């Protein structure tokens, strides 16, 4: 009834390659998050404070990022731009796709964060003689950052897991590398089982680090 023979040896032999590929996974996810946070913050501020074409662009960005499959977004930067003669490297396709997606989700988190800080905090800051920039950077943004901290952690986890879509545009990150070895050895199950464990460990490490950082950052 169950006559599949597991062969773990090939997987173990390519484990160093897989671990190296997982660093690439982590790298692209971290970069996408850094860019996503910066762009997401801008998108949120535009949507909260501006009118006109800039606001329209920001809203469209958020709508597309949140309401279409991440895979399609990646394909857009790969095959979509390719159709117009703009060929990005697999690395850039994944980075651009993930950044686009993360920025859209994070923009909504930031928007909620800004709306959760009462206007009276700004009034109190201004009444002390702070200018608008000081009130925002010293009083509002630190509070917003705390509100969006855990959603950002979530998004970071998503970025790591979503980077596995890179496999489908020829990017040799952890999943791409796994696919490469699996198709050469036909030990598909073994390879993806081990890779799943690696993803699990990466995510657990991110969550642990985030929790540790939170206890240091937020004493109130």
């Amino acid at each position: 009834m169950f006559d599949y023979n597991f062969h773990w040896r090939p997987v173990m032999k390519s484990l160093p390659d897989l671990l190296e590929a997982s660093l690439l996974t982590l790298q692209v996810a971290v970069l996408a998050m850094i860019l996503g946070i910066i762009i997401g913050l801008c998108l949120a501020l535009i949507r909260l404070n501006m009118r006109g074409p800039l606001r329209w662009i920001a809203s469209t960005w958020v709508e597309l990022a949140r309401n279409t499959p991440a895979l399609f977004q990646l394909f857009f930067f790969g095959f979509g731009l390719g159709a117009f003669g703009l060929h990005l490297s697999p690395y850039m396709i994944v980075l651009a796709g993930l950044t686009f997606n993360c920025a859209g989700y994070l923009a909504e988190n930031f928007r909620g964060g800004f709306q959760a800080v009462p206007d009276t905090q700004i009034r109190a800051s201004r009444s002390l003689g702070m200018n608008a920039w000081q009130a925002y950077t010293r009083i509002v943004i630190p509070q917003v950052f705390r509100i969006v901290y855990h959603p950002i952690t979530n998004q970071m986890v998503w970025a790591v897991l979503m980077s596995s879509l890179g496999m489908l545009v020829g990017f040799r990150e952890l999943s791409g590398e796994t696919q490469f070895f699996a198709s050469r050895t036909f030990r598909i199950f073994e390879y993806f089982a081990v890779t799943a464990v690696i993803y699990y460990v990466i995510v657990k490490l991110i969550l642990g680090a985030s929790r540790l950082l939170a206890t240091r950052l937020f004493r109130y």
Partner: protein
Amino acid sequence: MIEIHDLHKYFGSLHVLKGINLNVEKGEVLSVIGASGSGKSTLLYCINGLEPVQQSNAVVDGTDVHAKGTDINKLRQQLGMVFQQWNSFPHLTALENVALAPKIVKGKSKAEAREIAAQQLKHVGLGEKLDVYPSALSGGQQQRLAIARALAMEPEYMLFDEATSALDPELVGEVLETMRMLAEEGMTMICVTHEMGFARDVSDRVAFFHQGVMEEIGPPEQIFGNPQSEHTQKFLANVR
């Protein structure tokens, strides 16, 4: 000296202040009383420029608050403000709450700012709470923290916007005590308040506002003992 001449304020089509004329001398304590919606709080916001005005002349120590060239951030350093919702900064300790503005607005050194902050917190009776976050303070303590925060800018005037209205009744006393102490030290104060006892005992003058108009102003003995306007009489009969 604060001089207000024919001040008008609209929220949309709502005419909330209808031509206020008022002078507040240095060292004076003025209490402003009246029903909710009579424009008392709005008056304070217009004095420190947190609300724009449609027509006015609010002049603080010779500077027109709403004139185009006025450096409002500089002017606000003269005008300490305490709000109904105390608005302590939740992500900063009591000491940091008070030290922040002297440091980043006045350009004091970190050590200097912290020293000023510690001194002001001691002044309002929070000397033991320097490193505590606002979430661990009671409403009354947070309001005293807000007073210390305003005082740390060494203002010439203090504006109190219903500083005790949002407090639990048993916490009102400690805040009024602090305000009383400031008055005795000679601080110039405009207190929008519902505390009639405070208005009567501490103020040099009391102003009664009714529907955007200053109906009556005078020493507390006059306002409470022998009010001239019919609206003042009615209001005082209701709050007693």
